[in-house]
């Protein structure tokens, strides 16, 4: 393993900090740092079937996907991050400066070797599926190496109590991160901000006329549309504001459906994900719209004919710290299209 002198000294430094903290010497060094509270008891956080225990705050975090990366950046934890990976599209502008300072370990999915080479003390992922033998290794393998692995509560609803919406689970992640990093204040602020945005959106429900239906079109892959099914964020956003997701009968986050099936359900509103930053042909909302106008069945759709369309950044349809932004766009769209009294 060739470790660059820089990262080697960083590792040594991190080790020293850990040592100081565990012996209690660094406890009062800097009260502004989120790590400095250093209470004697270990922080315990349950994450998708595993209990993670932290006697000191993690100093070398690696994230396995964009949502995790942005969540940590939203909490101002960039100085604890030693690597990111798996960028789906560009990071949100407000996180760009902080993001650029963190090494990108792999622009796509991180490998098991790359994870270990970064010598992290915590791995954060939005999806359980990234912890497999052919990716970074199973969570059991990592825990045997003393490396705690976090999975977003959104991807693991069965671990929490029942009746929680994806939004509740999303906010729970912030709370967990706040406790793990002893940054409870920042987490509390983020939770409060987002909770407020969610409550704001929920208020619309009482004034929505009738029960309009919506289809959330994420992407068109090889001519076949991927839409939001039941259980994902779009479904939750729809329920929140009193709109019915037309594909709520499909128990899959992003089922692949046919154009005919969309036409049959003829939704009042069509939400199109814009993935233009991803840069593949057909990824932008404009291109998708253009394609639907040319497509024989889709062009007859009421929403297409009457241009009852809301465009949102595609990445924000997945659970992340940015989802509330799309929730806002959706509500705004409902108002513009006259679904709100």
């Amino acid at each position: 393993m060739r470790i660059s002198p820089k990262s080697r000294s960083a590792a040594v430094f991190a080790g020293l900090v850990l040592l100081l903290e565990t012996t209690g010497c660094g406890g009062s060094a800097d009260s502004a740092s989120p790590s400095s509270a250093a209470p004697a008891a270990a922080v315990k956080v349950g994450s998708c079937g595993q209990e993670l225990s932290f006697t000191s705050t993690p100093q070398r975090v690696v994230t396995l996907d964009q949502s995790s990366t942005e969540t940590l950046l939203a909490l101002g934890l960039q100085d604890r991050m030693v690597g990111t990976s798996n960028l789906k599209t560009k990071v949100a502008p407000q996180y760009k400066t902080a993001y650029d300072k963190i090494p990108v370990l792999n622009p796509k999915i991180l490998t098991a070797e790359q994870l270990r080479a970064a010598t992290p003390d915590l791995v954060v992922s939005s999806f359980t599926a990234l912890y497999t033998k052919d990716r970074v290794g199973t969570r059991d393998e990592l825990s045997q190496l003393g490396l705690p692995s976090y999975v977003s509560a959104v991807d693991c609803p069965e671990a929490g109590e029942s009746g929680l919406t994806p939004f509740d689970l999303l906010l729970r992640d912030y709370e967990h991160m706040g406790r793990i990093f002893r940054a409870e204040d920042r987490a509390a602020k983020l939770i409060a901000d987002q909770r407020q945005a969610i409550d704001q959106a929920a208020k619309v429900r009482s004034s929505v006329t009738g029960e309009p239906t919506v289809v959330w079109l994420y992407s068109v892959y090889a001519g076949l549309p991927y839409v939001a099914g039941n259980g994902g964020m779009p479904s939750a956003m729809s329920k929140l504001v009193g709109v019915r997701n037309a594909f709520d009968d499909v128990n899959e986050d992003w089922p692949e459906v046919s154009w005919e099936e969309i036409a049959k359900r003829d939704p009042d509103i069509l939400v199109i994900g814009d993935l233009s930053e991803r840069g593949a042909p057909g990824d932008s909302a404009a291109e998708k719209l253009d394609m639907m106008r040319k497509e024989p069945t889709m062009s007859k759709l009421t929403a297409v004919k009457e241009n009852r369309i809301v465009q949102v950044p595609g990445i924000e349809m997945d659970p992340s710290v940015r989802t509330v932004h799309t929730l806002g766009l959706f509500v705004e769209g409902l108002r513009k299209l006259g679904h709100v009294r």
Partner: protein
Amino acid sequence: MSASGVDLSVLHPTARDRTPPADLPPAPPDRSGTPVPVLLLAELVLLIASVAASVLIGTSEVGVADLGRVLGTRLGLPVEPLPGLLDSLIWDLRVPRVLLAALVGASLALCGAVLQAVTRNGLADPYLLGISSGASTGAVAVVVLGLGAGSFSVTGGAFAGALLSFGLLMLLLRRSGLGSMRIVLTGVIVAELFAAITALVMIASGDADTTRAILHWLLGSMASARWDAVIASVVVTVAGLCVIWPYATALDGFSFGTDTASSLGIDVRTTRIVLLGVTALLTAVAVASVGAVGFVGLIVPHGVRFLVGPLHRVLLPFSALAGAIFLVWTDALARVTFAPQEVPVGVFTALLGVPLFLLILRKRGEL
């Protein structure tokens, strides 16, 4: 005595019990001019060197000193151990991966050499004949449909699938004989059929993550190599070689067809059943641990024949060693060519294998 002084009377059955005279001329040299043990030793050294060199290659660089510390720690030598995660990178990931590549390469090359002899077809290969596809279907069925649990049942499913696809192949070829092009075309049909069944099983599962994982694995990937797969592979490969090795002379006898083989005292039926069973098992274990890696079994034995000739006593061990070296290096390429991303090794064996396959076909005048 003939004119050249050769005693022709030894050809008579009554000469069987005669002891040979002491003043025998030395045996004629091998075709390469180099004694076989020397070649074998050279290839073994080359394999060990390849394994050692390949351990140092990857997206995360490993130095000789790091490797030394990891091995030293394992051997209880007084060296400073590497930090846990770096130690794990080398010992839990890199080392088993390289060893598994060597074992799977050896296994597949051995299967190719045996299948080519048993079917009397130079184009036989577990991948080309659809055996790998059958094994994949079996393994996928076990994973997706949850028939039993653990890696043993995956191997079991792969074995059942391998046997099934080979049985189907033989059934389809029953009347038409084992001509080169016919066997390849029938193999392609069998492979397509099992690929379709695999797709069906995957769609039926409806789980995007499972589907993704299976697709990656179907391409033949070493990324999930761990020690448990290495140990299973060592046991089966060594056992397979031990079973196949005594049949080396019999495989030579198959060169002129089953009647000649049988007239030479070879039990054709038993030999076929044992060897096809062993190749199905070897393929199944290889597929269960790394997916369907193609073309190794096809091209390696051909290359080795150029070097040491077609006699199986020599061809089999050489093919195993050469197959190991081949896959160790192909996987090293797969790890670093598109760094920081890794390419499934099956993609690389196909990229290298297809042109060589065409070359073989052309050389045989079939294309």
